[in-house]
Structures are given as structure tokens and as C-alpha cells.
């Protein structure tokens, strides 16, 4: 520890906290510790070590403890996000809600996520229909999937895989944090058993569309 005046230490800590705040709010991606250190290196009394940075980050997080946003750490680094209890208000302020993703797109995405790397032909085999170019373009433009190579078969079709952005957008750290793929379901069962077999995540009302009442 260097011998600094207490006042100076306080001013320095405050300055570090503000620098981190500025950098984190200015960024559109999570900011890595390395980049945070680089930003802090401009401070007069010399850039901080990792330990001091962590302390400043904690102070910053504490400052927002009772506010509507929170400092979170993800794989790529630190970022601010709106606390989930304010999601509805944020949505209410948006003049147009983001469009729902079509089932065709979601099914294609699911197959790529669980079967990657996978060719378009293989996706089509599983879905039983052609995959539209529009869907592949949308997935690519959203940076959720990308071509990671080519299969060494005639035509050398592209092999699709999901991206880091896909995981980030779903708030996942790793691919295996996706809900596990169901075992093959027997094509005979009662609706009640079906519901039991499903994990709670998928308990949304839309599950209803799968099983019309038996008595029809």
C-alpha cells in the first residue's frame, strides 16, 4: 500500500467509480476487465490494480442498489441492465413491440442450437419442410447463427452453428445452459402424463396448442 492522504484516496476511488460508470454506460457490449483497466489507467495518480478495480466496481454496484438498473457480470465482462421488475414499463414506453419470432424460425434455431454444426439439408430432414432462405438470413443478420465450416460432401454445404451473441441475447453463459432436449417421447400417452414430463420452464400457456382435449 502506498501512503496516500485519506482525502486523496477518497477522491481517487470516487474518480475510478465515475470512470467505470461512464465506460459501462457508453458501451453497447459487456466491457472486459482489461478494457476497464485501460480506461482507469488515465487517472492522474496512476492506473489501479485488479484489486482496486474490483473494489470500485463493488462501490459502483452498491450505488445502484436501490435504483432501476443493476451492474451485472457476464461472460464477456460487466454491463448495466434494467432490473427485471421494470421490464413491463420499458415495454410500455416502446411505441412498437419487437415482432414475435415465427415458429419456423424458432424450430430452425432450435435444431441449429442442439445439433450444431448442422447443414441446411439436415435441418430440412428434421423439420420435413424446406427451410426458407429468408429464415437463414434473419438468423444470420441477428448474429444468432453463422457458418463455421463446410461439410465435405458434394456441394460442400455450409455447417451452421449458434454464436456467442445468441447465448448473450438469451442471457446464457454456455450452450449447455439451454434446457435439455427431451428424450424421444413415445407416441402414445395421456395428456396428463405429457404435461408432467415437461420441465417447468416450458409451462407457458402456449403449450396448450399441442394437445387438444381428448374428448373431441
Amino acid at each position, binding site marked *: 500500500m502506498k501512503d496516500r492522504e485519506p482525502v486523496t484516496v477518497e477522491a481517487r476511488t470516487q474518480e475510478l467509480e465515475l470512470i467505470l460508470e461512464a465506460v459501462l454506460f457508453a458501451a453497447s457490449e459487456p466491457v472486459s476487465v482489461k478494457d476497464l483497466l485501460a480506461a482507469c489507467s488515465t487517472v492522474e495518480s496512476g492506473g489501479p490494480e485488479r484489486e482496486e478495480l474490483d473494489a470500485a466496481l463493488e462501490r459502483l454496484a452498491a450505488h445502484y442498489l436501490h435504483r432501476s438498473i443493476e451492474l451485472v457480470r457476464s461472460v464477456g465482462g460487466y454491463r448495466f441492465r434494467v432490473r427485471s421488475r421494470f421490464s413491463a414499463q420499458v415495454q410500455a414506453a416502446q411505441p412498437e413491440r419487437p415482432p414475435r419470432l415465427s415458429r419456423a424460425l424458432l424450430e430452425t434455431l*432450435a435444431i441449429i442450437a442442439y445439433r450444431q454444426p448442422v447443414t441446411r439439408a439436415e435441418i430440412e430432414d428434421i423439420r420435413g419442410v424446406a427451410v426458407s432462405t429468408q429464415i437463414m438470413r434473419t438468423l444470420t443478420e441477428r448474429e444468432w447463427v453463422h457458418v463455421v465450416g463446410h461439410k465435405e460432401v458434394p456441394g460442400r454445404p455450409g455447417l451452421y452453428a449458434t454464436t456467442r451473441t445468441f447465448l448473450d441475447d438469451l442471457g446464457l453463459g454456455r450452450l449447455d445452459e439451454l434446457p435439455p432436449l427431451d428424450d424421444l417421447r413415445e407416441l402414445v400417452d395421456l395428456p396428463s402424463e405429457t404435461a408432467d414430463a415437461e420441465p417447468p420452464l416450458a409451462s407457458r400457456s402456449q403449450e396448450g396448442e399441442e394437445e387438444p382435449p381428448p374428448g373431441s
Partner: protein
Amino acid sequence: MTEAEVDELERPLEADWSCRVNGSPMGDMPADLYIPPDALEVFLESFEGPLDLLLYLIRRQNLDILSIPIAEITRQYMAYIEVMQALRLELAGEYLVMAALLAEIKSRMLLPRPAGSAEDDEEDPRLALIRQLQEYERFKTAAERIDDIPRLERDVFHAHAARDALAAPPAPAPALDDLIEALVGVLRRASLSAHHQISAEALSVRERMTRILETLEHREFVDFVSLLVVSEGRPGVVVAFLAVLELSKGGMLEWGQGEAFGPIQVRRRMAEVVES
């Protein structure tokens, strides 16, 4: 119609599944298709393909595909396709392929099996289809779960602030090539007249003109000869002399001579107004 709208319509419709509304059945529709024709179109469009439709039919029957007569499923499937055709929906080839597959399975089921050895080789023709259906269903469910995960910009929002008050980094100095290219562009644009415009004066003269102006900044008379730097040799003197002539011609210099045969002096010319 967007997919979203289809999805919206799908749910209330299924609630009405067993009700007969405006119940005028169409053509050869199977007896259990009690959907108003308008809604039926939306309903059928909402299927993601033949597997989706087939899966629906089987799940709806709530029967084991292995134990139900494939003929029944085939009959229903074909009925749906007929309805689609009646509604002049664009019927994708995949639906017809599936119909053909079902018919093939049905026909093979009808054939008597040779007893003994062949039994192991020849798989039940329904098995491959069942596996495909099961596989499809897993991903159909997975797709719904992925859609349920809180998603950025739909359920989760990052917090950020505008950067427009921040100063952008300064542009780097141009490369010499960029500068030359820019000048060549100007010359080319100026075409013929450029020859008269930008004369091929030695750069050293232009530079010396600048330096002389800098030297004369304080507007005091200096000895003309002092501007000719003898140490630069003859070319240096010539350059300086040309520069002084150029500046004089441009009206930027003022000449003076304190006494007869005294040293010739020169200073920057200023407008009279500025003085006093």
C-alpha cells in the same frame, strides 16, 4: 398474414375445436373437421409442414401409431390435403410426398409377410416415420422453450447512455499518397484550366514565401539582403529572390529606403486602416 398473427389466431381457434360453428361441412371433409371454413384456412396455414400436421393428427387421436391402423391416419391426412386444395391453399410438395409415404406404408402393411428369415431384415415400415415424428417433436418443444427464455430487447434490457457528447478520436495524419491523390483529383477536375491555375512553380519558392511572411510578422522593416540567405548558396539566394518578387507582385510587401544609396528595406504591407 404474418406468422405472429397466425399464432394469435391459433389459440382461440383450438378452443373451438369441437364446436360446430356455421357448420356447413365441406365436400369430403372428415366428420370430425368441425371448423368454420374461414378459420380452417388460418388453422391449416399454421402448420409448419407435413410432420407437424401428422403429429397433430396422431396426438389428437391420442393413439399409438403402432397400434392404430395406418389406414385411418392416411385417410385423415388425405382429407386435410383435399380441404387445402379446395381452399386453393398453396400446397407445398412436402405434404404430397408425405401422403405418398403414408399410402406406401399402408400398402406394405397389407402385403402378407413371408414367415421366418425375412422378418428380421424388413423393418416395420412405420418405424422410420415414427422416429422422424419423434425427432421433430423434440425440436418443436425445444423451439417453444427457447422462445420462453427471457430474451434481450424483448424481456431484458441493457442500460446504456448516448455517446454523442463524447469527443471522437482525431483523424490520423494523411499519408503522402492520399494527399497526392487528392491533388491529382483537383487537377483532373480543373482539366485544361488547371494548367494556368496551378503553375509549376518550385515548391521551394512557395515555401520561402511562407517563411518570409513568418519572418516579417512584426511588421518592421528588415534589410532586403537579409532575406537572401547566402549560406544556402546560389540556388538558395535565387529561391529567396523569386519568393520576394512573388510576394511583392501579390501586394504583400512594402519597400523602403531610409536614405539614398542606403540598404533597401522591406516589410509586410498592411492596410492603412489597420494602422494608427
